């Protein structure tokens, strides 16, 4: 009887707390990546006023990619974006160490898809994917010599299929889309 009660309790607890755990994990991972960048490069993320400019830049890029016929990539309201501007991103010859710290800051639910690094130009892109019910979360980290962005967005399976065919462009496309989305939703 006690065992049955314990099992029932466990099931109820799982049903009630699983979504909460998932939500917390989502926030933790995004924030953990931002913290990893701040700690490794000794930089601070910035917010609103600069995002408008990023949005304008993104809008132009996305429109160009789509041949003028723009279609939103990420689900509405799903985008989280952090921007670092006009700060120095110098890995001092330890770019592989930064790759490891990004990997360590994410839990195992994220699958790494692609990482591109250029030690000379201090340019890096990391893309991670994880399932979110019938959709997918995509996390993109882009680092350049003077700026960086971290984007997390929810995308539909057909959009992910389109993006996965060319993972090299995936990061830029999603980041531009997120920047535009952010610029449009802010007053």
């Amino acid at each position, binding site marked *: 009887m006690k065992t049955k009660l314990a099992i029932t309790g466990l099931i109820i607890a799982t049903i009630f707390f699983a979504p909460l755990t998932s939500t917390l994990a989502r926030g933790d991972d995004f924030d953990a990546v931002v913290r990893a960048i701040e700690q490794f490069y000794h930089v601070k993320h910035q917010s609103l006023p600069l995002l408008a400019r990023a949005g304008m830049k993104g809008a132009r890029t996305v429109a160009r990619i789509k041949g003028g016929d723009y279609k939103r990539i990420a689900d509405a309201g799903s985008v989280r974006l952090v921007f670092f501007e006009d700060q120095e991103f110098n890995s001092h010859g330890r770019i592989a160490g930064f790759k490891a710290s990004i990997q360590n800051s994410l839990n195992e639910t994220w699958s790494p898809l692609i990482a591109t690094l250029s030690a000379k130009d201090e340019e890096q892109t990391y893309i991670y994917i994880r399932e979110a019910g019938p959709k997918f979360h995509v996390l993109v980290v882009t680092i350049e010599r003077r700026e960086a962005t971290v984007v997390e967005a929810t995308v539909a399976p057909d959009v992910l299929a389109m993006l*996965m065919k060319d993972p090299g462009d995936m990061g830029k496309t999603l980041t531009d889309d997120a920047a535009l989305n952010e610029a449009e939703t802010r007053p």
Partner: protein
Amino acid sequence: MKTLFQTSLKLAAIMLLLIGGAAITAHAQGARLQIDQLDSLANKASETVDVKLDEHLMLTAAKIFSEKEDADIKEILKGLKGIYVKSFEFEKEGQYSTADVESVMFQLRGGGWSKIVGVTSKKDGDNVEVYLMMQGDQIQGLAVISAEPKEFTVVNIVGPVNLEKLSKLEGQFGVPDLGLDQPKPKKSK
């Protein structure tokens, strides 16, 4: 008594299936090369590309691609357990060592791997080797090691690979151009 016998028989069948499944999985896992030790080369490389499509992502990819538009890709991906690519480009020669290459090559000696192509150019210093892991007449894994003076690339595909259709993966999912294009048949006059 009969019921007990039938239950035992069912259990034995399930056990056999589990053991068989585990053996197949273990073999497919055996085709996965350990290449993360190369990551430190990124510190010296001018360009690094690291693609990891693990089994979980492969299953996802197989699900999300359209039956109509992406039928070819979907068929190639079906059954694959992973695609792993590490590619390093350097500005100068001698930025990676024979120990780096050897850390991958030693895994390809024995363990079911057979070299099917080996091209060495003494003039250019290029060295390309292609290995297959076979189980019966089915390919369980493929490895391409390309070591050039200023470039080092490892491609590892795990699972049943269809060589004829593999060229369709080139340029997609971060897989570099492996020169796998099928020769076009000559037109008869």
